[in-house]
C-alpha cells in the first residue's frame, strides 16, 4: 500500500462527460488516459509521477470494469518493454516514470520500440525531474527523444492543456507509428487545477483479443534487414507524418500581440513563467493577453520548420525560451531560419542562463536583457518589475545569509535506517573509515550530517556493482549499500549475482524497509504486507542465496544497534570468501505509523490495554555534549536551553513527535554513551492488578525518595 491513500481521487476517475475534475496535474493525466481508451498502463514509481501509479493502484476496480490492465513494473525497462503490446496490435498503452533516471534504465526497450514503430498509440508519461526539488542528476529527456526518434510533448502547465496533450499524443503516435513522450515538469505534475471531463472509453481492441488471435509482423522486429528499413521509415514516413499531424491538429499555439517586430518562442512548460514575467513588465496580463507575440511549442520534437519560419519571418528578433542544456531548440531554430532564408535575430542562451531551472525571476532578467538589446523603447516604456534586490541589500538581511543553516532531507523520526548507520559509524570508529558505495533510496541520506557516510551513487540498485573495482586484496574491504527497492529494480542481478560470479570480497548491506519507501511506500516483492493484487512476501535472503551467495546474515530488527554493529564488523573482517551480504530489515516508520497509529487510538478507545513507548532525556544528567545526536540525527531528538546557569551548552531533548522506536536506548547502550536517556512505557487501560502493583511500587519509591530529599542538604 502506498504512503497516501487515493480512495477519494479514485472516485474522480469515474467522472463523466461535462463534469468538472479538480486536482493534481498528474491525476488529470490518469483520467485522460481512461478517456483515451487506453488498454494497459505500466510504470515505475518515483517523484513526480508516483501519484499516477498510486492512484491507478488504488483503482483496480475501475480499471477492471473498463478492461484496462495495470502493472507496477519491476523497473522502467520492464515498463518500457510493456509497450511491445502496441507494436502490432491496435492497442493504446501508456507507461510512466521519472526522467531522466528512469529513461536511462528504459533505453534498451525504447530504442527497439522506436525502431520498429507502433500500431497502437504508445505514450510515455515523463516526470521531468529538473530544477528545485529534484533528487536526480540534472539532464534533459529531449536528447533521448531525438536520438531514438520519439516525439516529445511539453504542454502548457494547466490541466486542460495537459489532458488535451494526452489525447492528442495517442493520435499522433498512431498517425506516425511512433511512440510519444509527454514531458511534465515537477510543478506541473503537482499543480492543482480543474478541467471538464469526457466519458471513459473501454479499449476498442481488448488485450484478450490479441492473445486469442496472435499476429506477427517480422518487418517490425529489430534485426537486419528490417532495422535498416526502420531507419529509412523514420525519416521518410514517420517524421513527415508527425509534422503533418501536429500542424493539422494545431498542437503548437501562437498568441498574437501588438508588438510585432519581436516575438518569443517557448516550450509549452515555460508558458506560465514567461507570462508572469511579461505581466510584471506590464507586457501581458493575468488573463492571457500579451503584447509580445508568443509561439508556444507544445511539441518540442519534432519541430515544425514552416511554422517557426513563418512566425519569425517579419520579426526583427525572437527569443527562444528553452530550459536546460544543451540548446537543442535554439540550434535547430538557427538552422531552420537559415534554410528558410529568414534573417531574424535569434536570442536565447545569450540572455538566459545555459543551465538550471528557468524560475520566473530568471525569466524576468532574461526578458529584460532581450528587450534591452532588441526593443529598448518598449523596455523603457514598460513597468519595472517588482523585486527584492533593495531589501536584500539591507544589513539585517545580509546578516541573515550566514545565520540560516541548510536543511537537507534526512531520515524521518524513528526511521529504521538510522540505527543501521549508527551501527556503521560505531564500526568505523573501531576499524577506521571504509570505502562505502552508496545507492539510490532514503538510505542515501547517510551522506549528510550527522553520519557523513557514502562515497558515490551510480544509480538505482547499482550500489554493489559500483564497488566492483575495489575487489582487490587490501587491509580494508569495500562496503556497498543497497535498498530493497534498488535490489528488486536490478540489484539482484547487477549487484549480487555479479558479486558472486566475480568472487567479490567486499560486503553488501541491503537495507530492507519493506517498501519502495523513498518513492512513496509502494509494495515490492519482499514487502511483508498482504496485497490482494500483487504477490508479496518473497524474502530478499532467499533471492540472494538463490543466486549463489553463501555468507548471508539477516537481522530482522535494525534497531538492535549492537547486533548490527557486530554483524557489520564480522562482514568487514571475516576470512570467508565471496561477497559478505547483510540484509537489515525493519519496516519504514512512516508506513508503520500510518497503519498503527489509528489502530492504536481505536484500541485505546475500545478500552483495550495498550502500551505506548516514548523516550526522554534527563536534562540534569545530560552534559550537553550531543554525542547522541551525532549518532542519530533523529528529528525528534533535538536540543534545548539547559535551564541551568552552570551549563552553557544546550542539553538534548526529545519532543512529542518521538515514536519510541528504541534507537536512542540502543545507541546509548552500544556506543556506551551517557545514562541520560529513559524510556517511558505509558500504559493505556491498565488492568486492576497492574494498576495496584504500579501504585504500590510508586508509593514505596516516593516514600524512599522523600526520605532522602528530607536528609539532603540543600540551599533554597
Amino acid at each position, binding site marked *: 500500500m502506498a504512503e497516501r491513500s487515493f480512495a477519494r481521487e479514485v472516485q474522480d476517475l469515474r467522472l463523466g462527460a461535462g463534469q468538472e475534475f479538480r486536482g493534481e496535474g498528474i491525476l488529470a493525466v490518469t483520467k485522460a488516459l481512461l478517456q483515451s481508451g487506453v488498454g494497459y498502463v505500466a510504470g515505475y514509481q518515483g517523484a513526480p509521477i508516483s501519484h499516477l501509479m498510486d492512484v491507478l493502484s488504488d483503482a483496480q476496480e475501475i480499471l477492471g470494469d473498463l478492461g484496462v490492465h495495470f502493472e507496477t513494473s519491476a523497473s522502467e525497462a520492464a515498463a518500457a518493454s510493456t509497450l511491445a503490446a502496441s507494436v502490432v496490435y491496435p492497442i493504446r498503452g501508456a507507461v510512466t516514470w521519472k526522467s531522466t533516471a528512469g529513461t536511462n534504465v528504459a533505453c534498451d526497450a525504447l530504442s527497439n520500440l522506436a525502431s520498429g514503430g507502433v500500431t497502437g498509440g504508445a505514450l510515455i508519461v515523463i516526470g521531468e525531474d529538473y530544477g528545485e526539488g529534484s533528487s536526480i542528476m540534472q539532464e534533459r529527456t529531449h536528447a533521448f527523444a531525438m536520438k531514438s526518434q520519439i516525439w516529445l510533448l511539453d504542454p502548457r502547465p494547466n490541466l486542460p492543456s495537459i489532458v488535451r496533450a494526452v489525447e492528442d499524443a495517442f493520435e499522433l503516435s498512431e498517425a506516425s507509428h511512433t511512440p510519444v513522450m509527454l514531458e511534465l515538469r515537477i510543478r506541473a505534475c503537482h499543480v492543482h487545477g480543474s478541467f471538464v471531463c469526457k466519458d471513459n472509453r473501454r479499449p476498442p481492441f481488448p488485450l484478450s483479443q490479441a492473445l486469442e488471435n496472435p499476429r506477427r509482423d517480422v518487418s517490425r522486429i529489430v534485426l537486419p534487414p528490417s532495422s535498416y528499413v526502420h531507419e529509412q521509415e523514420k525519416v521518410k514516413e514517420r517524421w513527415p507524418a508527425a509534422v503533418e499531424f501536429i500542424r493539422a491538429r494545431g498542437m503548437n499555439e501562437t498568441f498574437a500581440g501588438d508588438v510585432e517586430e519581436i516575438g518569443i518562442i517557448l516550450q509549452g512548460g515555460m508558458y506560465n513563467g514567461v507570462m508572469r514575467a511579461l505581466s510584471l513588465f506590464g507586457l501581458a496580463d493575468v488573463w492571457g493577453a*500579451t503584447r509580445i507575440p508568443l509561439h508556444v511549442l507544445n511539441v518540442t520534437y519534432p519541430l515544425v520548420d514552416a511554422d517557426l519560419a513563418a512566425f519569425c519571418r517579419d520579426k526583427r528578433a525572437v527569443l527562444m525560451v528553452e530550459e536546460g542544456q544543451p540548446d537543442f531548440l535554439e540550434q535547430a531554430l538557427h538552422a531552420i531560419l537559415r534554410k528558410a532564408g529568414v534573417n531574424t535575430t535569434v536570442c536565447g542562451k545569450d540572455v538566459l542562463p545555459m543551465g538550471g531551472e528557468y524560475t520566473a525571476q530568471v525569466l524576468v532578467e532574461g526578458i529584460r536583457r532581450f528587450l534591452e538589446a532588441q526593443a529598448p523603447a518598449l523596455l523603457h516604456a514598460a513597468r519595472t518589475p*517588482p523585486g527584492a534586490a533593495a531589501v536584500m541589500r539591507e544589513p539585517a538581511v545580509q546578516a541573515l545569509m550566514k545565520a540560516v543553516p541548510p536543511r*537537507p*532531507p534526512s531520515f524521518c523520526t524513528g526511521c529504521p535506517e538510522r540505527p543501521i548507520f549508527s551501527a556503521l559509524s560505531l564500526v568505523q570508529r573501531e576499524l577506521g573509515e571504509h570505502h562505502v558505495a552508496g545507492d539510490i533510496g532514503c538510505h542515501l541520506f547517510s551522506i549528510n550530517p550527522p553520519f557523513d557516510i557514502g562515497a558515490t551513487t551510480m544509480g538505482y540498485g547499482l550500489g554493489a556493482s559500483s564497488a566492483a573495482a575495489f575487489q582487490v586484496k587490501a587491509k580494508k574491504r569495500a562496503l556497498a549499500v543497497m535498498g530493497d527497492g534498488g535490489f528488486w529494480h536490478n540489484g539482484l542481478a547487477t549487484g549480487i549475482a555479479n558479486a558472486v560470479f566475480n568472487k567479490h570480497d567486499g560486503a553488501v548491506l541491503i537495507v530492507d524497509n519493506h517498501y519502495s519507501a523513498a518513492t512513496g511506500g509502494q509494495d515490492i516483492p519482499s514487502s511483508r504486507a498482504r496485497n490482494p493484487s500483487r504477490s508479496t512476501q518473497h524474502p530478499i535472503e532467499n533471492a540472494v542465496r538463490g543466486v549463489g551467495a553463501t555468507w548471508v546474515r539477516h537481522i530482522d530488527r535494525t534497531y538492535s544497534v549492537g547486533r548490527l554493529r557486530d554483524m557489520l564488523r564480522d562482514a568487514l573482517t571475516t576470512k570467508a570468501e565471496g561477497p559478505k551480504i547483510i540484509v537489515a530489515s525493519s519496516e519504514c516508520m512512516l508506513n508503520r505509523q500510518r497503519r498503527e497509529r489509528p489502530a492504536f487510538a481505536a484500541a485505546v478507545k475500545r478500552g483495550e490495554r495498550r502500551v505506548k513507548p516514548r523516550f526522554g532525556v534527563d536534562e540534569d544528567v545530560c552534559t550537553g555534549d550531543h554525542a547522541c545526536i551525532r549518532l542519530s540525527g533523529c528529528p525528534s531528538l533535538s536540543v534545548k536551553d539547559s535551564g541551568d546557569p552552570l551549563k552553557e*551548552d544546550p542539553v538534548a531533548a526529545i519532543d512529542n513527535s518521538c515514536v519510541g522506536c528504541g534507537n536512542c536506548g540502543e545507541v546509548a547502550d552500544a556506543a556506551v554513551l551517557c545514562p541520560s536517556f529513559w524510556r*517511558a512505557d505509558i500504559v493505556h487501560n491498565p488492568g486492576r492488578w497492574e494498576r495496584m502493583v504500579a501504585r504500590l511500587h510508586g508509593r514505596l519509591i516516593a516514600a524512599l525518595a522523600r526520605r532522602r*530529599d528530607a536528609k539532603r542538604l540543600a*540551599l533554597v
Partner: protein
Amino acid sequence: MDATPPELPDRSLNIAILAMGGQGGGVLADWIVDLAEREGWQAQSTSVPGVAQRTGATIYYVEIIRPHPGRSPVLSLLPVPGDVDVVIAAEFFEAGRAIQRGLVTPDRTTLIASTHRAYAVLEKAKPGDGRGDSGAVAAAARVAARRFIAADMQALAERAGSVISASLFGALAAAEVLPFPRAAFEATVRAAGVGVEASLRAFAAGFESIATPPTPPPAAAALAAQARGGSEAERAALARALARLDEFPAPAQPMLRHGLQRVADYQDAAYAHEYLDRVAHLAAHDDGADGFALSIEAARHVAVAMAYDDVIRVADLKTRGARFTRVRAEIAAQPDQPVGITEFFHPRLEEVCASLPAGLGRAVQRSALLSGLIGRLFARGRHVRTDRLTGFLPLYLIAGLKRRRRTLLRHAGEQAHLDAWLALAARHAAADPRLATEIVKCRRLVKGYGDTHARGSSKFDRVTGAVDRLAGRADAADWVRRLREAALADEDGRTLDGALATLATLESVPAPTGETV
C-alpha cells in the same frame, strides 16, 4: 492587447508556505485552495515535495484570483521575489530562508511565522552550542516584511491537541490579507473532516495570537538564601558559606550562589567551603575586567568540575522524587496511569574501578584477572526499571554511597585534574587575568560520559597544553578562546588540529606586542 475591463482583477493574491517535510505544509496549501474555491475564487497550488518531504525544507505556493466568466487566468507555478503577498513559515528559520530567497518584501509581504525552532542537524550536532541566532531572523523579518506576525504556533497547536497547519491557518485568517471571513476559514477546516474539534481549537488559538501581545518571560526565581535538610551543624556550616559570598565581587555573587547550591546538593557543607576557597583563590586576581569575568567563570566552572557526573551522582538524580514528577509531566501521563521507566546504563571497567575505594580500584586496574572478570561482567549494557523497587533500590543504594565519595578512585582523579587546571589558571592570573579567564572556561570541553568524556578531556589537555607556549603574547587569551571554540566545532577534533597547526606557524614569527582589540 485587450484593455482589461475595470471590474477584472489585474493580479492574483500570492501565498508561499515554507515548511519542513512532514509538517503539514501541504495540508495548509490544500486548505487555502479549498477556502478560495469555496468562496468562488479560482486557485492554483503547486509544490515540489519529492524527497524534500523527508524532513527537508519544502515550499508550497498558492495563487488565488477572483474569476471572470469565460476567461481563465494564467497563474505562476513559482513565487517571484517582490510578488508575494503572504509568506507563511512553519518554523522560524524557514522564515529566514524565505527572506533569503527574496520572497519577503516591504511593500507587499505579510510574513506569518511560527517562532519555534526545529534545529537543523548541523545546529544540534555540534559538541558546543551550534544553534543559529533567532534574533538575526527577527531583525531581518522586521526590515523585510510589510507586516511581521510571529507567535509560537507549534506550542499553540500542541496545547490544542492539533498540528501547526491549523494554528497557522488561524493566524492567516486573523491577518486579514485574504478577503474571506473567519467563518469561511472555519468551514474549510470542518470540511476536511479529520480531527475537526482539535483543529478548530488550534485555529482559534492561532487567530487570537495575533491580537495578544507575547507574554513576557517569567521573572527570575528568587535567589536561594536558606539552608535546608542535613544536620543542624551542616545547615549552620552552609549558612556560613552563604555569608562568605559577600567576600566576592557583587557581579559574581549570583553565579556563586548557583555554584554553592550545586556543590552542597552534590556532597556536603564542607565541600561548599572547599568550592568557595577554590574560587576565591582565582577571584583574588580579578581586576574587574569584563565585568569580573574571571570570578564569574570560576564560580561556574569550578562548581561543574566539583560536581562531576559519577555513578553516584547519576543514581542520585535518577531516584529523586522530583525526577519522577518531571518524567510523568513530560509524557503527559494521567495521575493514576501506570508508566514503566527504563534507564539505559552501560558502565565499563573504567567506571566500575572509579567507583571503588581508591586503593582497591587501582588494584583491580593492575590485575589482569580482576579486570577481565569485571570487564566481562559489564560487557553488556543494563536496562534498569526505576518504576519498580527491584530497579529503584540498587540505584537508591548507590546514591547513598555519597558519603564515601571522597575515598573513591574517581574522586582522586577528579581532584588531581581540578588542581592542575586551577593551578594553571592561577599561574597566569596575575600577569594576564584575561588569559586566566579563558583557561577557566576551557573546563567546558570536559563533558559527556565514556568515550565522549575521554575525547573531551583530551581536547581539554591539548588546548590547555598550548597555554604555556602562548603566555606572554598579547593575544594569548584570544588564542585560547579560538582553540576552545575550534575544539567545540566538531567531535573528532579536526578543527582543533587545524587551529593548533595555525598556531604552530604563528609561533615561528615574533609575537605581537601591545594591546589587542
